[in-house]
């Protein structure tokens, strides 16, 4: 069905990764008539492969190549982590685009900057992204149905005086739309949506790109190195196929969207005599300023059943704490969202052993759950680097992931746990657990957009400061993390980037 391009065809744009950034960029370019080869490291599943069981699906679609350091919870499959994500799609707030101006530098370790673009500029692309993804409560799309877990969260929110919360902003169809069905409340959306109600590029952007005749997806194709010529322009991507055989796909331009760890790795691994520290890295910022949000999880053991395993894993957001209110003792803000997890994950999150742990699983039907995501400040020392000697099955240097919570994040988490405890206890919770969730599913910053080339890796279009035909198209390009879930912004930026690439090509300047 889909077009096939020759390896020697240097007119194509090569996109590395088929998730929120790469899948969207590929489709947007292909729809404009630009030829795209998309390299995806993982296999292509179908909806029939999706079972309602998190560990089975982790085996089918999780990224399990060797890594050292902090855990990162991402996918190696067509659709990338849009297969696993929960579908929460808030926009970044105006002041969050101006993080440095708003908060000031927090201390000698933080490396806050302002984004080289504003909310006003991104707003039309947010509208396009919301329409593309089918975000509930936007346009003419209804709110998401309120699950039991959401109703508990909303009732607790009222009790503590919160005003801004709703079951909107989920990229899960509340009703059938755009050829995909409405949500059946199957639960544990992170196993992948078995009916395709949740937006994933696997069954939206990728097939839409394929019918244009301008797109080829190559699965089980792991990008190893990006090549360049003696003028410093990128010329192709070397990748390993399923058998480990190396090929080079020639390219007019290359866009990298490997969900941060792989984006940093392929840039750093593409070092050469011209670029001894890796591609696009004259600033030394590739891999640095790694952000992954302040995360928290709260469980309330409620006096009567909740059955939070029934229905969409996440179904709504409380926004009251998303603002910058320094009187709380920290910079930036956070969002409070529902979450539901299976018994094993429940036990794992509360951690430890003995009756203190077991009380939560023993009373599984009475659990209510909350997920907290907040802004974390960038630090140069939080980074992805390459291990000097360890190699993986493809012979690639193993990525080393170093991340520590800033004191600002610890203070924010303490505040969020105090508030969520108050919410659940106001409704009669008999036990409460709240704490960190060091899971690493929101990855950002390692090739960030910056006005000053010395502060980052890419410009306001996600185009490398050093190499004009090299782009970054995933969360790596975020200048700062903002509070909310990153996927909507990744998609909006990819749509905007496609417009820019097409314009530059039309002007013959790319």
């Amino acid at each position, binding site marked *: 069905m889909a077009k096939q391009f020759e390896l020697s065809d240097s007119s194509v744009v090569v996109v590395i990764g088929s998730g929120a950034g790469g899948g969207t960029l590929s489709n947007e370019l292909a729809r404009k008539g630009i030829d795209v080869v998309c390299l995806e490291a993982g296999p292509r599943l179908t909806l029939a492969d999706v079972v*309602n069981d998190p560990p089975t699906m982790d085996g089918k679609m999780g990224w399990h190549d060797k890594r050292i350091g902090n*855990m990162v919870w991402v996918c190696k499959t067509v659709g990338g982590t849009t297969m696993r994500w929960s579908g929460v799609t808030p926009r970044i707030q105006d002041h969050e685009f101006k993080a440095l101006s708003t908060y000031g530098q927090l201390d000698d370790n933080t490396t806050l900057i302002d984004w080289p673009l504003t909310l006003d500029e991104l707003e039309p692309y947010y509208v396009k992204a919301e329409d593309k993804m089918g975000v509930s409560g936007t346009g003419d799309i209804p709110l998401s149905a309120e*699950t*039991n877990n959401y109703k*508990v969260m909303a009732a607790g929110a009222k009790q503590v005086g919160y005003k801004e919360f709703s079951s909107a902003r989920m990229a899960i169809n509340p009703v059938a739309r755009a050829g995909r069905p409405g949500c059946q409340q199957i639960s544990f959306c992170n196993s992948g949506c078995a009916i395709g109600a949740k937006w994933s590029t696997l069954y939206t952007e990728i097939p839409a790109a394929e019918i244009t005749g301008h797109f080829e997806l190559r699965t089980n194709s792991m990008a190893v190195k990006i090549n360049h010529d003696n003028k410093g322009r990128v010329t192709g991507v070397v990748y390993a196929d399923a058998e480990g055989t190396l090929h080079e796909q020639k390219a007019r331009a290359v866009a990298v969207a490997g969900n941060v760890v792989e984006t940093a790795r392929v840039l750093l691994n593409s070092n050469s005599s011209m670029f001894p520290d890796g591609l696009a890295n004259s600033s030394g910022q590739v891999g640095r300023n790694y952000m992954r949000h302040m995360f928290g999880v709260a469980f309330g053991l409620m006096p009567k059943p909740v059955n939070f395993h029934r229905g969409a894993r996440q179904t709504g957001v409380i926004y009251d704490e998303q603002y910058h209110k320094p009187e709380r003792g920290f910079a930036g803000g956070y969002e409070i969202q529902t979450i539901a997890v299976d*018994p094993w994950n429940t036990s794992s999150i509360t951690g430890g052993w003995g009756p203190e742990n077991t009380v939560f699983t023993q009373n*599984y039907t009475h659990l209510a759950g909350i997920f907290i995501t907040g802004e974390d400040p960038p630090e140069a020392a939080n980074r992805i680097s390459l291990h000097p000697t360890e190699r993986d099955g493809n012979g690639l240097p193993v990525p080393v992931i170093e991340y520590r919570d800033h004191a600002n994040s610890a203070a924010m988490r303490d505040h969020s746990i105090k508030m969520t405890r108050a919410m659940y206890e106001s409704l009669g919770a008999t036990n409460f657990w709240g704490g960190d969730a*060091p*899971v690493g599913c929101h990855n950002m910053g390692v090739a960030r957009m910056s006005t000053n080339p010395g502060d980052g890796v890419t410009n306001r279009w996600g185009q490398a400061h050093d190499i004009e035909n090299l782009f970054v198209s995933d969360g790596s390009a975020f200048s700062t993390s903002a509070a909310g879930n990153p996927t909507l912004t990744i998609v909006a930026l990819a749509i905007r980037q496609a417009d820019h690439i097409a314009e530059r090509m039309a002007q013959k300047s790319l």
Partner: protein
Amino acid sequence: MNDKQTTRRRLLITALAFSGAATTSMGTSFLGSAAAWAATPDDTENLAAMGRLAQLLFPHEGLADSVYGEVISEVLAMTVADPATEGLLVAAENALDAVHGEAWASLSESQQLSAMTALQDEAFFAGIREMVRFRLYYHPDVWMHIDYPGSSKEHGGYINRGFNDIAWLPEEN
């Protein structure tokens, strides 16, 4: 290793990382440390004692002892399938026995618990704890015991089966 064992090992690593038991090394430090025990031969005589350990780790009132026995047998299978964890259960029992200077299995519950507390920061303890956690909380009898029904896909999800049936909250909308 076959695919299933590979998946189990991955899940163990995931479990360690997710629970914060291995915050800096994604579980590989545990596996590396455990390799030191690999010279110890496995035997099945300590399974009863280790079943008791599983029960004290995650004590569910009313859950049959046999479930903990099945879980620890599965954990044994996981450990012997991997050179990095082979011998772990025997090593664990030896360490538990050494705390009070007599067989851990014959101690009172409070002494058993104090021995566990004394060893809870050891890498092998975290390893066994996470393997037990994984096998126990995917055991069908445990799901039944805690009224978790498992996959809902084949039942059409919960759209017509109570996803929004809560009725005890104040100011019900």
